[in-house]
């Protein structure tokens, strides 16, 4: 039995290492920076799949509003990058002012960030890029903590969590659209500057940006993997399987649920920030329901209870989508195929690709054991 488990774990690590090697060596194989930029976006989506797998697979909490945290992270960081763009510096003030604020301003209002449109002073601290980076993680954490505390302390569970998070992401999306003068409404934040870190400028179409995303992605995967193997991670899984029993055993179930809800939100917020670096925009579409549900689809196809499965699911689905989406009609047909795949996965492979891989590994093991016992 012990031997079995170690073989399964070996295989698991083999998958992780293969994935890391492939991801980190990819730039050596190609000099098509456009393609690399695409892959870096998909790796960001991989992080979103990971965040879903963490909350859905390990905590049993289906968050249909993960886009909220992704969107908040993206917006916070995009605000900083917007102020760094050259157009923001050319609006007739010595301090940067976003161009859309000038369009929205009442005639006669000063071209200053403090008071050009009502509420624009909120942008003032974002002149520091570091502030934007910190807020991109801190705001999702704070929101997730407040929401998570409300949900889990009141012992709301199952499908109601899904409905609340769904309503929440829609609520925030509407607020962002309604605050047109300071968020640019439907259009979102475009025409951003580049991230500058330790004297390096991250041009989205250069290797630096790819490596920034790829290394972050690998590190977060390792950290998440470690986190679920700790004592806290094991207790979390016990609360998923039977919350009441864990409660009787003396564990503060809500505390574990809140903690992992917050971790998953922080990952999504960080992913939002990385996405802004690679894609150079933030828009309310990040908070669309269909995007949040897509994340769940990626995680489900990859395997909801496997962190790396969810990452691979996200990268795989998006890569296929990108390669068939060259023409409009194939793009629509691909959506149709995704719908069918999804029904198929839920009905026949509820554990996704990772589940198939595990079954295959077990089958190999059994065969191996059988042959060794015969020999013996």
């Amino acid at each position, binding site marked *: 039995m012990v031997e079995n488990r170690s073989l399964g774990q070996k295989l698991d690590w083999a998958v992780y290492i293969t994935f890391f090697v492939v991801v980190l060596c990819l730039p050596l194989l190609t000099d098509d920076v456009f393609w690399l930029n695409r892959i870096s976006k998909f790796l960001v989506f991989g992080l979103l799949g990971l965040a879903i797998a963490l909350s859905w697979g390990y905590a049993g909490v289906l968050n249909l509003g993960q886009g909220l945290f992704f969107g908040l992270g993206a917006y916070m960081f995009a605000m900083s990058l917007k102020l760094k763009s050259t157009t923001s510096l050319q609006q007739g003030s010595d301090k940067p002012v976003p161009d859309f604020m000038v369009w929205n301003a009442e005639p006669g209002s000063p071209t200053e960030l403090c008071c050009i449109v009502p509420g624009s002073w909120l942008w003032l601290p974002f002149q520091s890029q570091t502030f934007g980076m910190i807020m991109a993680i801190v705001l999702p954490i704070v929101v997730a903590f407040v929401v998570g505390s409300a949900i889990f302390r*009141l012992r709301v569970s199952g499908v*109601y969590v899904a409905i609340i998070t769904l*309503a929440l992401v*829609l609520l925030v999306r509407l607020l962002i659209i309604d605050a047109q003068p300071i968020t640019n409404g439907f259009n979102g934040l475009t025409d951003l500057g580049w991230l500058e870190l330790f004297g390096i400028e991250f041009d989205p179409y250069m290797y630096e940006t790819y490596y920034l995303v790829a290394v972050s992605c690998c590190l977060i995967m390792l950290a998440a993997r470690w986190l679920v193997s700790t004592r806290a991670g094991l207790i979390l899984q016990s609360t998923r399987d039977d919350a009441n029993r864990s409660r009787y055993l003396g564990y503060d179930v809500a505390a574990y649920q809140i903690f992992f809800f917050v971790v998953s939100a922080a990952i999504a917020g960080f992913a939002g920030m990385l996405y802004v670096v690679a894609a150079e925009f933030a828009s309310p579409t990040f908070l669309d329901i269909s995007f949040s549900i897509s994340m769940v689809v990626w995680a489900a196809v990859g395997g909801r209870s496997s962190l790396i499965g969810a990452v691979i699911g996200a990268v795989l689905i998006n890569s296929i989508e990108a390669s068939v989406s060259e023409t409009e009609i194939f793009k629509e047909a691909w*959506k*149709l195929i995704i719908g069918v795949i999804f029904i198929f996965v839920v009905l026949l492979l509820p554990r996704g690709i990772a589940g198939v891989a595990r079954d295959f590994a077990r089958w190999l093991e059994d065969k191996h054991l059988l042959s060794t016992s015969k020999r013996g």
Partner: protein
Amino acid sequence: MSNILFIGLSLSSILLLIALGLSITYGAMGVINMAHGELVMIGAYTAVLSGLYLNLNLFLALPLAFLVSAGVGLAVERVIIRRLYGRIIDTLLATWGVAILLQQLIRLEFGLSFFNIHVDGLGPGFQSFPIPAFLSENFDIFGFTVQPYRSFIIVLTIALTFLTWFLMYRTSLGTQVRAIMRNPQMAAACGIDVNRISAWTFAYGSGLAGVAGVLLAGFKAVIPDMGESVVVDGFLVVVVGGVGSLFGTLLSAAVLGQINGVFAILTNDIVARAIVFGVVIFLILLRPNGLFGFKSR
């Protein structure tokens, strides 16, 4: 003031119309049918197509759309949902796939657009459905402007709600459905054919979605993804009202519709919707079982 209430009332009646079918499929059968919006969309397209090709008017399109949506719903239940009873989250995911599938079928004109064949009334663009002239012209009674189409929707919604109530609480079929709601195993042990009743119930709920689609088609643009926003609203109404409670659904549709209507006038449409979502979150947090829900299934 009465005008504001009327706007709220008509918003409520549309919410109720959409939620009515859901309160049956979700409430009675524990299926989160994300494709409910697409069944509404199919109802709307049935109206458009029957108007174009069969020259049917609104009143004939209503029963036809009921049958078409019920048929699609029945097929979805037989092929997919049947295998997922008791796995509520999985029903949500699988029916999301169904929703995409149905949307794309309409958008791609059932695949014909690959062969450059265009079918009038299908495809990605906007479609419109003309309503009869006598329902579209406002008239005044005692200084109060009556919008006949909105009034028609309200009256029809009330009638359908009453019909649903009658079916659920005054017929033997309804008794069986309610038995399944409370405890499917026990119901089966008492000799109820759970499979058959579930299929019919699901078809009925889907048919109601089709009727809602025809009515929506009268004042909204008919597009393949019109169901997406509709389904979320429907769910919020059902969950706030309480799963399995027809009266709860009625009340929550009335309350949420009025809130939406009043705040849309005080502020704007976007803020009004945001407030509705806020109220919904608050209510679910306070009463996860809804205003009139019962525990356990």
